[in-house]
């Protein structure tokens, strides 16, 4: 199999999922890129994650109230779900449709919201916005529960336009006015949360959406040039028709799947990095009647996605860093064992407190994932996993390296290690340092027992060095 096929499929699996082991990458590459894309786009053909396995070990996780439990269940699914793209899309929408535990204060509701993203995240964008706008936790998070016919609260109406769909503007123009925000908020009056049952004695009950017609503003509203007695679903219909919405979703998809873009507030004035790529996705959005999976198909089958210039052109987010490493070495995959809780907290230490984004604007991505504290966490976590040659998944990489030749020169050794941990592309400077480091102990053999243990030790150390490179921060 050609190396470039492996590199391309590895790129696809890192982006459209949370990466894979070398064995899986090679097996998928043998199926052919286009077939792998189709499998990703049709997740129902794969079995769902074995949630029963988790519940068998942790019965209390069923409808659990604690946030940590819900985060742990999610991380388990990221690692284990054979349906990788819906899992990746659940994270995608969580990073855009931000609601945080800091206000919602219910792990169960955060878990339900993520489950909704998992279920609808690749479907029709209109349905997704409708589900979002009838999500009780979101209505509470953005104060729609405080928005009344006689006393308007614009928060949800504004964020729906600014952060969830159309965006403030594009190509230097504005996409909507302050009057549109008010009209939008008025249309969503009465979209509220049913009074919850008191938590005692049976514990908390799930929150439910309730439309209250008596609190809904029934007068005419002019929204984006269209006048009528609009309700929230009419607003969603109008929003979905806007070119701004196609642009906004396309740019988000590009930033998440292809290459780092500037942050959202810059989008009105800063043109897309690759305008033709954005236009391809915008066209798929309209041609398909707002199908997200059609946009994804256009993206993954495009030349702009396959291009070598966009590989490792994104700083990995912390969930990608943590889950990607676990999947690379097959840890916590297909089995429940101690340590999962601590692992599920790792993204938080790296600056991504899952289910609790800092604000409705979400996490800033790209280089903003990195500061001196989070970089130490990332490097130490990655090097501890990849350098642990007692893990079966790491051991199998060492064995592969041994199988590549009886004697490896330092150069071959470094190339082999980089290939097995990605294949990772590093700058010439970085490679020079790694080769110089390897050269100090000379060539590697694995004939005798002592040579084998030296080989193993040196490979573990080289993996740790690779995990510590600046290049490894990218995915």
């Amino acid at each position, binding site marked *: 199999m050609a190396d470039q096929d492996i590199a391309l499929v590895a790129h696809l699996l890192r982006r459209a999922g949370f990466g894979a082991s070398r064995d899986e990458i090679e097996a998928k590459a043998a199926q052919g890129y286009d077939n792998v894309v189709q499998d990703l786009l049709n997740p129902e053909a794969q079995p769902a994650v074995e949630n029963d396995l988790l519940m068998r070990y942790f019965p209390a996780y069923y409808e659990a109230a604690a946030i940590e439990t819900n985060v742990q269940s999610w991380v388990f699914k990221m690692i284990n779900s054979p349906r990788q793209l819906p899992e990746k899309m659940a994270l995608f929408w969580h990073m855009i449709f931000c609601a945080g535990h800091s206000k919602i204060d219910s792990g169960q509701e955060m878990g339900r919201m993520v489950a909704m993203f998992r279920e609808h995240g690749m479907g029709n964008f209109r349905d997704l916005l409708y589900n979002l706008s009838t999500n009780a936790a979101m209505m509470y998070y953005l104060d729609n529960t405080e928005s009344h016919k006689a006393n308007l609260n614009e928060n949800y109406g504004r964020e729906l336009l600014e952060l969830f769909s159309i965006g403030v503007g594009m190509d230097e123009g504005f996409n909507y006015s302050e009057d549109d925000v008010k009209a939008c908020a008025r249309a969503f009056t009465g979209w509220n949360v049913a009074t919850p049952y008191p938590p005692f004695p049976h514990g908390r009950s799930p929150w439910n959406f309730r439309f209250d017609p008596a609190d809904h503003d029934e007068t005419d509203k002019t929204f984006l040039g269209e006048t009528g007695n609009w309700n929230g679903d009419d607003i969603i219909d109008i929003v979905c028709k806007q070119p701004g919405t196609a642009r906004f979703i396309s740019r988000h998809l590009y930033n998440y799947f292809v290459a780092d873009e500037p942050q959202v507030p810059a989008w009105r004035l800063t043109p897309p990095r690759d305008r033709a790529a954005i236009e391809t996705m915008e066209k798929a959005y309209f041609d398909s009647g707002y199908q997200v999976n059609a946009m994804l198909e256009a993206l993954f089958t495009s030349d702009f996605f396959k291009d070598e210039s966009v590989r490792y052109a994104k700083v990995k987010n912390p969930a990608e860093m943590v889950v990607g490493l676990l999947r690379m070495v097959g840890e916590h995959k297909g089995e429940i064992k101690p340590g999962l809780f601590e692992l599920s907290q790792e993204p938080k230490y790296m600056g991504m407190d899952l289910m609790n984004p800092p604000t409705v604007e979400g996490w800033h991505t790209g280089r903003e994932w990195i*500061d001196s*504290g989070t970089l130490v966490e990332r490097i130490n976590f990655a090097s501890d996993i990849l350098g642990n040659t007692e893990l079966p998944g790491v051991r199998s990489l060492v064995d592969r390296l041994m199988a590549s030749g009886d004697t490896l020169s330092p150069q071959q050794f470094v190339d082999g290690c980089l290939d097995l941990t990605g294949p990772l592309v590093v700058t010439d400077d970085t490679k020079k340092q790694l080769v110089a*480091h390897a050269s*100090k102990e000379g060539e590697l053999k694995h004939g005798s027992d002592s040579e084998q243990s030296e080989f193993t030790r040196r490979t573990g150390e080289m993996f740790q060095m690779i995990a510590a490179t*600046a290049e490894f921060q990218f995915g």
Partner: protein
Amino acid sequence: MVSTKKDPVLAVLSLSGGNDGLNTVIPLNNGLYRDYRPTLAVPEDQIIPINDELGFHPTMAPLKKFWDAGQLAIFVGIGYPTPSYSHFRSMDIWHTCEPEKIGTEGWLGRATKQLDPTSENVLTAVNFGRGLPRALVMDGVPVASVGNLETYGLLTGIDGESQRNEALDVFGRMYSPAIGTGPVMDYIHATGTDALKGADILSTAPDKYTSNVEYSSTSIGQYMKNIAQTHLAEFGTRVLYTTSPYNGFDSHANQAQANAGLWTDVSRSVDDFMTDLREHDASDNVTLLLFTEFGRRINDNGSGTDHGAAGIAFAVGEHVKGGIYGNYPSLELSQQEEGGNLKFNLDFRSLYSSILEDWFHLEPEPIVGGNFERIKFFG
């Protein structure tokens, strides 16, 4: 304004989970306290009186010394208008000084920026614990976050000192400024170099340290020891922060036993810390602040207490003017905050403003977001 021989330093211990102020600094001879706390009221004869009206929980004897020496300031009825009963939100409000909207910058991050505008010292602020509390977050301010000072550093998983040193050497060269690799790569290289520098310096602290003080083996005790070690190593660190185990003070159930353990630990750790610094002649320029996100419900629930409003904070130090600041909130029904809680009368931003102005000699308004009355507790 206070002047110290060396640059003033603030150490912070955040009591995570909402400490029950009412059972920490307890109203004496108060019938309402006994009525509202049928299960949890501390028997009158076990309370350690500190004046005619108030007394400490029996586990807090080590703190009484500081009170008697006039070095313990107690801030009662502290909080902010319209209390939030969510841990996360309320802690965020204390961290960011933004009760109305969601803030992203922390007050100590901003203060650190003012103390070291060009980030000359990568260790101006150091956090002990995993992950950075919002209080220390500020764009462009490097803050080291140390899970364990004894083992802190990069590539800590590499066995063997010489192997690790060699690996760090390679790391240093890999992260040296690169040419033509783009702004993001440049930034990561610079950040990696800062992190390595910080870790290199910090890792020398435990070796430099000797002490007669035996800290408790709990995480609070060990992190207070790490704070002392870092301070004594004289790296120029001005803000040292740690948090008690996450939500440990969230005493909905079994509070009597749990809080006795916690306050035994906190009191001992504060005493050990101040004693340690004093024995090293390094206590003059340190103030220690203890705070929590909220107090708890006045009425106990038969086993513990639920989330409340106004709480209690402490400041300890040789330049602290001991005393009670703020008014102890009344337990009278008509004086309560809605929902059976203590009503605040002292804004936490007043406490911060006083620290910033009198201790750090900074202008508080831009840091806490407004002009708040100062509490004159330094002297």
